[in-house]
């Protein structure tokens, strides 16, 4: 089983610092939420973890051999010239699990439709299905529930929670919604506005999943941090 080890001193893009000192690990079965204002460098951090960008002062690495990654990008990044099912197959996310997730996410009727014909909400659900169905050894999710309507957001969150139980993997979840972070993650990391520093690294109490009051309390405690500006 693999872990993600992040120890960044600085990350620059086009000469400008976008990430400051950030150190944390994502354990083998842990879901860690990254929360921060938009543009603070969350997606940059995710790209580093995905190995799509390697230029960084410090380290971002996985323990052991590079894991198979399920990635949800900020944009769906589907192949518009392939059908819904082909998009899953090509990514190694076809088969029974792919079919099950299509059904679960309300896309079964669209299996043979060109991906170019999907609405944005459907495309986002397909991107989630692709990441979850491929039997990934680690998940990197960049605001996977953005631009979904409320019902589909609930559905997609439930699917992610189910997936956690069936196949626990180290997961990095980028979001700017504290309630979402508390509902889905074991730990919440709050980042400052860019260049992002780590403001707080807080475990979510187990009770927060069953007790709405505890969840609200945790969110409130984190909200204090997310309002802090970097000095």
């Amino acid at each position, binding site marked *: 089983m693999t872990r993600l080890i992040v120890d960044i001193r600085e990350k620059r893009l086009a000469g400008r610092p976008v990430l400051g000192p950030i150190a944390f690990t994502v354990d083998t079965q842990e879901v860690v939420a990254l929360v921060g204002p938009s543009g603070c460098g969350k997606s940059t951090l995710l790209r580093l973890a*995905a*190995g*799509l960008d390697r230029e960084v002062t410090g380290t971002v690495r996985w323990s052991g051999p590079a894991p*198979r*990654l399920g*990635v949800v*990008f900020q944009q769906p*990044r589907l192949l518009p010239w392939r059908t819904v099912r082909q998009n899953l197959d090509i990514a190694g996310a076809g088969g029974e699990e792919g079919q099950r997730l299509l059904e679960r996410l309300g896309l079964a009727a669209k299996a043979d439709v*060109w991906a*170019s014909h999907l609405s944005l909400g459907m495309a986002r659900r397909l991107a989630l299905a692709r990441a979850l169905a491929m039997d990934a050894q680690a998940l990197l999710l960049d605001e996977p529930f953005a631009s979904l309507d409320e019902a589909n957001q609930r559905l997609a969150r439930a699917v992610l929670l189910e997936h956690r139980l069936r196949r626990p993997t180290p997961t990095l979840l980028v979001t700017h919604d504290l309630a979402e972070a508390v509902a889905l993650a074991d730990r919440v990391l709050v980042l400052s506005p860019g260049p992002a520093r780590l403001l707080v690294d807080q475990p979510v109490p187990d009770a927060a999943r069953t007790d709405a009051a505890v969840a609200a309390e945790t969110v409130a405690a984190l909200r204090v941090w997310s309002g802090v500006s970097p000095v």
Partner: protein
Amino acid sequence: MSTAVAKRAWLIRALSVLVLLLVWEGAGRLAASPLAPPASAVLATLGREVASGALPHHVGITLARVAMSFVLAMGAGTALGLAMGWWRAVDLWLDSALLLLLNLPALVLIVLLYVWFGLTEAAAITAVALNKLPTTAVTVREGVRALDGDLLEMGRAYRLGRAATLRHIVLPQLQPYLFAATRSGLSLIWKIVLVVELLGRSDGVGFQIQVYFQLFDVAHILAYALAFILIIQVIEWAALQPLERWARRWRV
């Protein structure tokens, strides 16, 4: 487009061809010279040449040369364009050579290949292919430079591998560029094949044009040219357009 509008468009197209033929016919009759034959005379010559078997024979040979040069130029040109668009080092190394080839007159290339390799079939086909290759490479290179980086990144994240990336991510995006190269290639190649035949082959449409040039037989020259124009147009209608519709079927 509604069917009524489409029908109207077809009608106008048909009428424009008819008008063209009538103008040609009238002008030819007015000129009353064997050097400017009317449409009817050229069509009659075309009919006789088809019946005698001479035209199908020579057109067939020319078509085979067009097909071979086309496949060579498109294959090598696409591979070169892909490599140059993908790897900056390859681009830097080969760009000057490509520029040279791009601006080298077709005639010079043909003459050089005939001088170096003799008046052979291989020299003829290579000369034509080399004329078309650089434009294909340049077009495909443009396509590669315009590839969507986000999708390539997705492919890398999901470890698609080289073959799958090429097939599912790169080639679908290159399709419009490949079609553009194919179109311009077809019209360019058959014209160059004729020059190659005229200069150094003893059969094919280009050879026939040379023969009838020496006889000042304009009706035959026009008959062969017309036959080839019709064939290229049929390829466009029967193969290229359906293929392009198929390739674009996923578009909204």
